[in-house]
Every structure is written in C-alpha cells, then in structure tokens.
C-alpha cells in the first residue's frame, strides 16, 4: 500500500467525495435507526449497514487497492460501489443498486488476484478471500436475503481485509512462518462460521465468534502495536487506535460466541457495532495517516487533534454498548450513537482540514492553530459540547417536545382489528396498520401455500416499519405512508415486528398463522386481544375453569369500606398505569388502571367540596378522566393526558350522588371494560351517620389472551366472561363484608358496566332506605320497603338496611345470569 505509483490521484478525488456523500446518507439513516425523527431517511435507514460497510469503507478500500495496482479496470470496483450506494440512497430499484455492488465486489476480488500475481503473499491471498465476503454478501442481497443474516459475511470482508493489512505492514518485522499459519488458521475458523451461517445462523454466528476471538489473540500477540505504543507522535497514535480496535474485536467475538444470532435488538446492536465501529472504524482511524497520503497524493502531517475523534469514538461506543445495550438506558444508547457519528464526522473533518492546511504556506497553519488554542475558542468548543449533549438528552425518548397540557392524538385507533383470516385464493392482500405501540391486526390467518401481500400503512404519529421473520421488510414509513410487503407463499407460521428500537418490546408484534394450526399454535402477546367490534371473539382468549374457585394465596380483595370525608378540598394524585392483574381464578390480564387498581380509588366528599385530581399518565397511551359529577364541554373539562404528561382536573361537586368516573378516551368501550373506572361518592346534606358504609362498583371483564388486554370483540357483543363487584368474581364470598346485628349498613352501588345493568339485592335484608337518581325513593318513615337497587351502567345510588340476627347473608345482582358469572358476595353478621 505504500507503493506510490507516479499517477495523479484524479479518480480518487472524484470517488472520495462521493464516498463522503454515501457516508453522510448512511449516518443520516443511522439517526433514524437511533429513534430520531429525521426526514427522508427511509432508504438510508434500511440500507444503513450496507452503505456504511460497503458504500463507504468498502469504497475506501477499493480506491486504495486500485491505486496500488494502477490498472484502469480496477477502478471499476470503487466506481461501481459508489454508484450502487448512491443509487440506493436516491431510492432507485434496490436490485439494480445491489447488482452494482456485486460487480464492485467481483472487480475487487480480481484486483487482489492481480496483486497476488505480481507479488505472491499470504496477505494478498487473505484479502482476496475477504473480497469474496463482499461478493457473497451482495449476491445474497440480490437474492433477497435480509442483511441481518449476512452480517458474518460483511465481517468476512472487513475484518479479514484489515487483519491481512496488519500482516502486510508487519512483513518487514520478521513474522515467522508459524505465526503466519496461525493467522490463516484463525481466519479459517471465521470462514467456517460464516459458511455455516448461510444455513444455520445460530451456530454460524457462534463459530464466527470463536474465529473473531482467535484473530484478536493473533493480532494482540504478533502486532507491533504493543511495542510502538510506547513511542511518540504518529506512531503512538496509530498504535493506540490499533490496540483499542483489538479490544473491541475481542468484545465482539465474545458477544457473537455467547449470544449467537440476534436480530434488531440490543444484543444485535452491540454485536454489530463492537466489530464494525469499535474494530473497523478504529483501524481506519489508525491507518488514515498512512493510507490517505498514498491515495490523494498529498502529505497528511500528523496532528495531536487526531486523538480527539479517536477518543470520542471509543468513549461513545462504551456509552452506547455498556450504558445503552447492556444497562438498557435508551438515553445512553441514543447519545452514544450520535456521538459515534460525531466521532466519524470529526475524523473526516480533522483529516480534510489537515490536508487543506498542509497545502497552504506553513505560517498560516500556525496562525490558525494559535487561534484555535485561544481561551475563547476553547470555551466556545466546550460550550458547544454542552449544547450538543443537552439538546440530545432533552430530545431523547420522544419525537418532539410535547407540552404536557397540549392535546395529543389519541394513541389508540378507534377502529382496531384483531384476528383477520385472509380469504383463500392464489394471492391475498391484507391491510395492516402500524400505530403506537401495536400492529393491527395482530394475527393474520392464511391457508398454507397462499401468497400473501401485506398492505402496510403507518397510522401512528411516529415512524414505523414492519419486518417479518422471513427477512422481508418495508422501508421506514412516515406517518400516513403506505407500502406493500410481499410475504411470498406462506407455508409456515411467521412473526412480524417493527424494527424501530424499543417498539418490538413495547408490543409492536404480529403473527401470521396457518389456518390449521392457528388455534393451538398461539404465541400470545399483550396486545393480541385488540379487536374489531365486528370480528369474532378470539379462540386464544384466556378461560377461567372455575370462576368461583378459591383465589390464590396472594390475592387481596379491593377494600369496599367507604373512606371518611377529610376536609372540603380534595387534592389527590393518581398515576395511570398498565398493571398485570389476576382478574379471575387462573386468568391474568393487563388492566389499564387509575392508580393501579380496577376499580380506581374511591373519592368521598360533600356537596360543595372542591376536587383537584391530578392524573399522571405513566403509560404509552393517551387517557382522560370523565367525572359524571362535572359539567362543561368535554373537550375542555375532560382533557386528554398524553403519555408521560399530567393534568389536574378541578371541579366542585354541586350535587349529591354515587357518581361514576371513567376514562373517556376512544375507543371508550375498550378503555372502560379494561379497568378505567371508579366511584365518586358525594354525600347528600344531613346524611345520617351509620355503623358501616361500603362501596360496590359493578363491572364486567372480557378476557383477552392470558396476560393481554380484554377482547374487544366480546365487549362489543356484550359477552362478558365474568361480572364482578369491585374487580374480582365472588370477591366478598371469600372475604365477606362484616356487620353486627343491629348495625345500620349503607351500601353505595355504582355500575361501571360497560354494558350490564344490575339489580343489587341482599338476601334476607330488605332495604328501608333507597337513594337513586339524586333523591330518596324509600325512607325509613315510609310504609314501603325496597328489594333491589336497580342501577344502570353509568349510574349509582345507595341503600340502607340492618340485620336482625347473626348469620351469612348473600348479596348479589338479581340479574341471575350475572350473579352466576361472579356478581355476588356475602355479609358476615356477628351477634
């Protein structure tokens, strides 16, 4: 590579700026992959890996080799590589761009063969093998294979090329034949791993990891860097870059060996970037002072400023991989990722400015240098670093700075679809919607052998894409954008997910199932129960074998006791939370709750009291709070609270009653049936004191899949699995409400529904007082009594009664079908 032929670097001067365009596009795409909201990054995000490793680094290597060989045709390699990459960036047909990349790989291979014929050497042979890695990668891409499965072959190209260059540079230092053979052995292990990965990704990646570790060991043992790091100036800079790179290669090897094949998660991120940033980029930084002058035919004087980007690269990579991937901090991952980009761009900038300044008269360099060393410049630079870190952190985790008081689009769609059965036929197209944070329908059922096309539309307000386990994927779609995803002929069950980091874990997954196996081969996810009101209840829903079974030992009943009134201003803060709860024997569901329970907390006050209820939304979905006791236009009094925000609802209770409060965000049926309701008790004036006051909130549950949310289809068809008082079937049969003989008992009943009325009745205790619709229908002084308190959904009232003898007195809704489904309990009366 130091063989400088007397030929002007004209081609290089055209190709290198183009490579810079490619790297900018690749980095732009990386921003989108890091979860930032950047415009027009669809293609460059999907092709980020190819653009960076082949379009940018591959082009650099090809330019350098073409310069070394000095034959006109060898320039086809970098030219085709740049052309193919730019074609991909501009959104041209992917197959054409990939085909150009294949051409580039083949020409690079032939270039190596030609170099090897001029001078037979192990390093030239190894580099030719490495170029085959480029050819294999791009050929499989043309055949439609997903890049994630080709990572080992991309690594064959880059890691072996670089390792062989180290061998080349060490040739004057008397590397023994044995050492040479050891390196060939290490490379062979890696090649075996890459070859296995064509058929078996899991074991291939693991064997590849062993190969990477073997190469690391060889490099650390035989490379001169270990000695030269003790020298000064450029030699030391290069050695530092090399040794840091070797450390990352070792880390990468371990990650490959230990975790095997991963895709689109944090392990994948770490596996990839330890090798491709930590090793490859560091090696490129280290070699730049040697390679760049031979390519551009200009001196590149060493400057200590080269250390800046190198140090930033490694520090930010530690932040990204240790803080982000391993410790799970999204902010660390994003900041680290952006700083990775800053490091690369910084290096390009330092190199370019050094080349530029080296061409000027020397004094001007010193003037600029002195300027750069002034305290004001240092202060501004430091200040800009503070600015960058602050802005990146402030913007992390969201696509915009949403004011907590502003109205967001509801995160839920109003027309959600769950299981869709694709009609039989040769080819079917199924509409798929991507919203935060789910994919609808979550299950598509096809007959085996059917050709399936998914018409994917991003109906959310963030960017999303859809990738199937077969490897096909859409580009990153902007809100409102659509794309057709050809799933091909489906012969086995597939899964799908959004590859935007974090979205898969947050629930953006789907399944494509075969008609025959759909019923038994279900892989549940939390959102699978989202249903279209018109669809049939899912066969995957959880079932309670015995609603009246003894609750498990950890179960605690909801406290039915009415809390006393404290003061006339009621300040409370509730957190809206998604809580996985046991809602019936053997059935857990993800309930959406006000402050962790369904029903939510009981509010108790008197007429004229002020209620300040602060809602803090800790979920990924918008919710709101509708107090039936409140008046005013819903849009201003029932303000929607976006995820991560809070709002305080303030109202004065003008009228007495047993009021319902609930979430009124659409689809309201789903939000209510999934747990978002509770009771607000406002005492009428002159309410007589009684011995015991209880609150019973009636409601229905519609079981979705185990651990998931309720089944919307059942809600829409009014097919509850259980009807309950205070959130659990037969709760007070197992934990009876207490009373003593002669006690006056007041029971407040609120019906949260969503759809069933109830007729509250206590067996063996007629009511002498009944308050409903804001007035007394029966009073103790009346001759008549009441037998049921009939409460419609969204309504409430109370009854009073007393027990004359000790014993067990069942209470229930006299809608007997619902009593059997769980809406009953017991008063245990002692003497």
């Amino acid at each position, binding site marked *: 590579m130091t063989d400088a032929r007397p030929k002007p670097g004209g081609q290089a001067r055209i190709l290198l700026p183009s490579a810079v365009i490619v790297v900018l596009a690749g980095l732009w795409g990386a921003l989108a992959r890091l979860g930032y909201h950047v415009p027009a990054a669809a293609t460059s995000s999907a092709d980020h890996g190819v653009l960076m490793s082949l379009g940018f680094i591959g082009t650099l290597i090809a330019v350098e080799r073409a310069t070394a060989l000095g034959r006109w045709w060898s320039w086809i390699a970098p030219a085709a590589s740049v052309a193919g990459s730019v074609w991909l960036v501009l959104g041209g047909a992917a197959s054409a761009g990939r085909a150009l990349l294949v051409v580039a790989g083949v020409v690079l291979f032939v270039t190596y063969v030609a170099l090897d014929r001029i001078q037979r050497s192990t390093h030239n042979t190894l580099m030719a093998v490495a170029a085959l890695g480029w050819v294999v990668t791009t050929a499989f891409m043309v055949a439609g294979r997903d890049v994630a499965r080709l990572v080992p072959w991309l690594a064959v190209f880059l890691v072996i090329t670089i390792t062989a260059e180290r061998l080349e540079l060490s040739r004057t230092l008397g590397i023994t034949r044995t050492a040479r053979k050891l390196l060939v052995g290490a490379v062979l292990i890696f090649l075996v791993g890459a070859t296995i990965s064509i058929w078996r990704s899991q074991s291939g990646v693991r064997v590849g990891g062993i190969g990477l570790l073997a190469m690391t060991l060889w490099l650390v043992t035989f490379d001169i860097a270990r000695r030269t790091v003790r020298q000064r100036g450029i030699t030391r800079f290069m050695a530092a870059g090399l040794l840091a790179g070797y450390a990352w290669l070792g880390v990468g090897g371990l990650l490959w060996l230990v975790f095997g094949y991963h895709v689109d998660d944090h392990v994948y991120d770490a596996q990839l970037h330890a090798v491709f940033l930590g090793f490859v980029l560091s090696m490129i930084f280290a070699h730049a002072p040697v390679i760049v002058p031979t390519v551009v035919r200009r001196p590149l004087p060493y400057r200590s400023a080269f250390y800046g980007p190198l140090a930033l690269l490694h520090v930010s990579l530690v932040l990204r991989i240790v803080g982000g991937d391993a410790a799970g901090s999204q902010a660390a991952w994003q900041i680290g990722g952006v700083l990775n980009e800053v490091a690369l761009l910084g290096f390009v900038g330092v190199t370019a400015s050094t080349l530029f300044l080296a061409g000027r008269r020397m004094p001007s360099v010193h003037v600029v240098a002195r300027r750069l060393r002034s*305290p*004001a410049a*240092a*202060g*501004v630079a*430091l*200040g*800009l670093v*503070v*600015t960058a870190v*602050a*802005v990146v*952190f*402030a*913007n*992390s*985790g*969201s696509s*915009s*700075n*949403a*004011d*907590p008081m502003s109205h967001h689009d509801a995160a839920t769609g109003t027309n959600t679809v769950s299981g869709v059965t694709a009609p039989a036929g040769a080819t079917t197209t199924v509409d798929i919607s991507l919203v935060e944070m789910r994919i609808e329908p979550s299950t598509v059922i096809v007959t085996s052998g059917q050709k399936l096309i998914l018409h994917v539309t991003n109906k959310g307000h963030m960017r999303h894409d859809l990738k199937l386990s077969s490897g096909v994927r859409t580009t990153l779609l902007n809100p409102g954008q659509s794309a057709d995803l050809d799933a091909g002929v489906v012969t086995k069950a597939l899964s799908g997910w959004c590859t935007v980091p974090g979205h898969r874990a947050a629930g953006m997954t789907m399944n494509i199932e075969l008609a025959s196996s759909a019923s038994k081969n279900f892989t549940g996810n939390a959102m699978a129960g989202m249903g279209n009101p018109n669809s049939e209840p899912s066969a995957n829903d959880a079932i309670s074998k015995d609603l009246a079974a003894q609750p498990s030992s950890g179960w605690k009943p909801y406290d039915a006791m009415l809390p006393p009134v404290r003061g006339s201003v009621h300040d409370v*803060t509730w957190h809206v939370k998604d809580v996985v709860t046991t809602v019936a024997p053997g059935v857990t569901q993800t309930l959406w709750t006000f402050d962790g329970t369904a029903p939510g907390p009981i509010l108790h006050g008197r007429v004229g009291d002020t209620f300040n209820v*602060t809602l*803090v939304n*800790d979920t990924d979905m918008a919710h709101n709070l509708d107090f039936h006791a409140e008046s005013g236009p819903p849009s201003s009094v029932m303000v929607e609270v976006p995820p*991560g*925000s*809070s*709002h*305080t609802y303030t109202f004065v209770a003008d009228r007495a009653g047993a009021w319902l409060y609930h979430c009124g965000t659409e689809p309201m049926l789903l939000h209510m049936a999934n747990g978002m309701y509770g009771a607000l008790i406002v005492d009428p004036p002159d309410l007589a004191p009684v011995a015991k006051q209880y609150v019973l909130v009636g409601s229905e549950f519609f079981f979705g899949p185990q651990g998931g949310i309720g089944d919307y289809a059942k809600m829409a068809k009014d097919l509850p699995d259980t009807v309950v008082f205070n959130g659990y079937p037969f709760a007070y049969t197992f934990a009876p409400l207490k009373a003593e003989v002669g006690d006056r008992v007041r029971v407040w009943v609120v019906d949260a529904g969503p759809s069933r009325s109830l007729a509250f009745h206590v067996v063996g205790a007629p009511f002498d007082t009944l308050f409903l619709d804001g007035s007394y229908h029966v009073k103790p002084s009346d001759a008549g009594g009441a037998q049921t308190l009939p409460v419609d959904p969204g309504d409430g009232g109370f009854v009073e009664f007393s027990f004359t003898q000790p014993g067990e007195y069942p209470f229930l809704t006299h809608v007997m079908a619902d009593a059997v489904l769980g809406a009953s309990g017991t008063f245990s009366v002692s003497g």
Partner: protein
Amino acid sequence: MVSWWSLVRFIHVLSAAVWVGGQLTLSLLFLPLLRNKLPGELRATLSSSIGRRFAFYTMTVFLPVQVASGIGLAIEHHVTWASLAHPGYGRTLLTKLVVFAVVLVLSGVHGWLHSTGRTVQARALAVTSLVGSCVIILLATALAT
C-alpha cells in the same frame, strides 16, 4: 391572560434575562473595550471587581429569585420528581436544571481560577458558562412551545 402565575413567570424570565444578558454584555461588549482602552493594572482591577460584583449579585439576588420562582412554576405545572424522567417536557426541564447547575459550577470555578491568576483557563470557562447560559435559554424556549 395575566394571572398571579404569569407574574411569577415574568419574574423568572426577567431575572434570567438580566443574568444571561449581563454576562453577554460584559463578555462581548464591555471587557473587550476594557482590554483595548485601559492600561494593564487598572484593567485587571476593574475586571476582577466587576466579576466579584456580578458573583455577589448572582448569589444574593439572582439565585434565590430563580430557585424560588422556578419551584413555584414547577408546582403550578404539576411537575413531579418522576415526571422529570419522562421524555418530552420533563426531560427537557431536567436537562435545563442540570445545565443550570453545571453553569453555576463553571462560574464558580472561573472565579477561583481568576483569583489564583490562571487567567487563560478562567477566560475559557467564562465563555463555556456563557454558551451554557444560552443553552438554558434554548431549553426554556423549548419548554414554552
């Protein structure tokens, strides 16, 4: 609509404007003039007494006003400790608070460096904290949108 809370916000913004504006005016207009027009000894005395006066104002007026009005505004905005971690408003506010703390520390270190005669480093830190102050304003603007 002008309410009592807008008065608190007004005080918060006005106080910040005086502080950041004061720093900018001193650093960009006044001190360069000082450097060009005054003889060395007088210049050093004057600039360090200006610095001390500004530090005194910061500690006795600016900081108490800013912290008190800031806490008030946070309460009015229903900011909780937990909400500071939330993406969006909370995280932007948290960043602003952290940068504010950093700027105060930097100003302190600047004063110490200056008093111990390390004027070059002191100047660098002065500029850093100046840029940092501008970041605070930027983040405050982001909060208001």
